[in-house]
């Protein structure tokens, strides 16, 4: 049922956001590069929730439509899309007030995998029928 998928997505988004915020702080202390204008607690949380909620709908749709292979297809899709999203932080142009855009991919590239990692990590807690 959708309720199970929803709570799976919600907890995954919370976990991804927490990990993202912690990594953001560690990266700042390690490099002293300030990207708070584009990646801060608000934006990291917002993006995590957005991605995980989108994943919830896609997961539920696929699991309902493809009863046997829905989850496998979803996992492949989530991984492939996450990997493709690596191009976003590499190609994005930041505000010119940020003087070290070279360091941005080092911060943001790992973050694109956090929602998927959180989703897969929490999956055992939400096993069962989604019908």
């Amino acid at each position: 049922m959708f309720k199970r998928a929803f709570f799976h997505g919600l907890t995954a988004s919370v976990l991804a956001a927490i990990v993202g915020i912690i990594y953001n702080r560690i990266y700042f202390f390690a490099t002293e590069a300030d990207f708070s204008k584009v990646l801060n607690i608000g934006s990291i949380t917002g993006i995590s929730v957005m991605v995980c909620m989108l994943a919830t709908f896609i997961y539920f749709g696929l699991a309902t439509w493809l009863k046997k292979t829905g989850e496998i297809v979803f996992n492949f899709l989530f991984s492939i899309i996450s990997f493709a999203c690596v191009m976003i932080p590499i190609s994005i142009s930041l505000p010119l007030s940020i003087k070290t855009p070279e360091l941005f991919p080092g911060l943001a590239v790992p973050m694109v995998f956090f929602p998927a990692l959180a989703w897969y990590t929490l999956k055992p807690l939400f096993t069962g029928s989604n019908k």
Partner: protein
Amino acid sequence: MKKLIYPAAAVALFFASAFTVIKSQDWKIAEGYSIKFDGGDPSGEFGGLKGTISFDANDLANSKFSTSIDVASINTGNGMKNTHAKSEKWFDAAKYPSITFTSSSIAKTASGYAATGTLDMHGVQKPVTIPFTFDGSTFKGSFEVNRMDYNVNTAEPAHGSQKFKVDITVPVTK
């Protein structure tokens, strides 16, 4: 004759001090300047501005700009583009570390002033005229540069823009 020594010294000091007044028209580049370029994609800014600015609205004949910017300071907002811009293919920052502008004449125009001089970029010197304004504390100028004129990645004329609008804002102090 001895009586004239001190009046002569006073007169000499008076005229010498007049030169210090003229000298005071030299301006120091202050923090907060910007040299932005806009070609759609890419757009960005340069830093590392240094040089001498001698400008007196009442004495344009003795006014002069001699400035340079640091090519390696280019910031497009994207690390990958910054690296490309500094590479041999584009600005070749290792071989041509600075872009310089040296004025040869400054003239009054209807909207402000125009500095004519030589822009030295990527090892190519070209005459340019930069229209600008000065409000007493900030110079503002704008002009257009075609990278093909300066042999910047001529092998790929369609890669990004050829023409760039350059906007310069330089606050100054005495």
